């Protein structure tokens, strides 16, 4: 899963798709997740980072993360090469 090249992400969480003109706001945690994805981290290392930093159980994190990823895909913020990725 890669953030598409037309996506511009500001430090304040403003996400702009320069190809479609769509814009989105993400909260600080969403921004953090986007940064991990942009750094090409796989889910296991993202999970380790988050579990070490926040009071959340692994199952909830996994569920919320996939939900977030589905939203990113829906809004063409990320492109998914392999459909089995993150599964």
């Amino acid at each position, binding site marked *: 899963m890669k953030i598409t090249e*037309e996506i*511009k992400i500001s430090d304040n969480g403003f996400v*702009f798709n*320069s*190809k*479609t*003109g769509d814009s989105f706001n993400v909260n600080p945690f969403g921004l953090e997740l986007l940064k991990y994805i942009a750094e090409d981290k796989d889910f296991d290392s993202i999970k380790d980072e988050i579990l070490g930093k926040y009071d959340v159980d692994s199952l909830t994190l996994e569920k919320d993360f996939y939900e977030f990823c589905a939203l990113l895909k829906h809004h063409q913020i990320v492109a998914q090469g392999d459909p089995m990725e993150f599964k």
Partner: protein
Amino acid sequence: MPKQKITLAVTGLNNTDNPGPGVPVIRGAKESEGLEIRVIGLVYENLEPGIYMDGLCDRIFQIPYPSSGSEELIERIEEIHKQEKIDVLIPNFDAELFSFMKNEQRLSDQGVHTFLPSLKQFQEREKDKLPEFGEKYGVKVPASINLGSISQISDMEGKFDYPVMIKGQFYDAYQVNNEEQVKQAFFKISAKWGLPVIVQEFVKGTEVNVIALGDGKGNTIAAVPMRKQYITDKGKAWGGVTLADEKMMGLTRMIIRKTKWKGGMELELIKNSSGEYYLIEINPRIPAWVYLAVGAGQNIPEALIKLALGQDVKPMEAYEIGKMFVRYSYDMIVDLEKFAAISMNKEI
């Protein structure tokens, strides 16, 4: 290097909720680094806001509507030219373009230069000829039929699924969901804009637009794609953002190359969910949102003036992506004298 002094005549100073492109064209022209522009505003109505904007026009003249006849309009331009020595004229209304295109040579012989599409280019992109245009130039367009009378509504049967778009040949469009609504839209549009009325397949997707300038030899001198972010109830952009979309740019360059388009244009496109672009309209002139292109780095009015003067203009390829425009309305307090002068003397 001293700036070249140019007298520019511009129509379309109606910066209303259905804005003409005149005011942004003048703003762009005045920002030219190489040209010193003296502006002659040409207006049809005495309440066009551009008349009252300080520092916009050096002189203002009222001109007759093209509907009163090409000859009357052109004679008025010649009369103004005798006083003001117009170098370049940029007409900004669809309805007046025909008169100016037809009289291009006559005006040019007197030193009034324009840079307009040819009559052939103008006519083949007309809304009622869009399917032929699409086929000829290999562009996807929505299916459409032309209705010359109300009885032809039966021709739609089996060809379209609702909703469909009902459009006037010059202006107006309604999305309709059944035959009764088709009839209502037909009467509304035909009463205002004449026949034919166009029935067009409804393409679901996002509307995107490109402003472009062709040099008449197949080269794209300027092109900036935009998505409307805020649309008025008249369907006009009240806010928009420039896009980075190579597919749209490629399509624009292809259309200009194949048609050898001369002058300003606006492509209206629908991008469907599969990422395909459907051309729904070509406006054969600079659109009212031209100042976004100027702000993004492509001064289209300046380039058009230079092309009209026969100067060499290099294609502009770069523009800022994610640049936005937001329109606003503003109450000007003006003295009655200006209104009286344009009403009584037809000039200021």
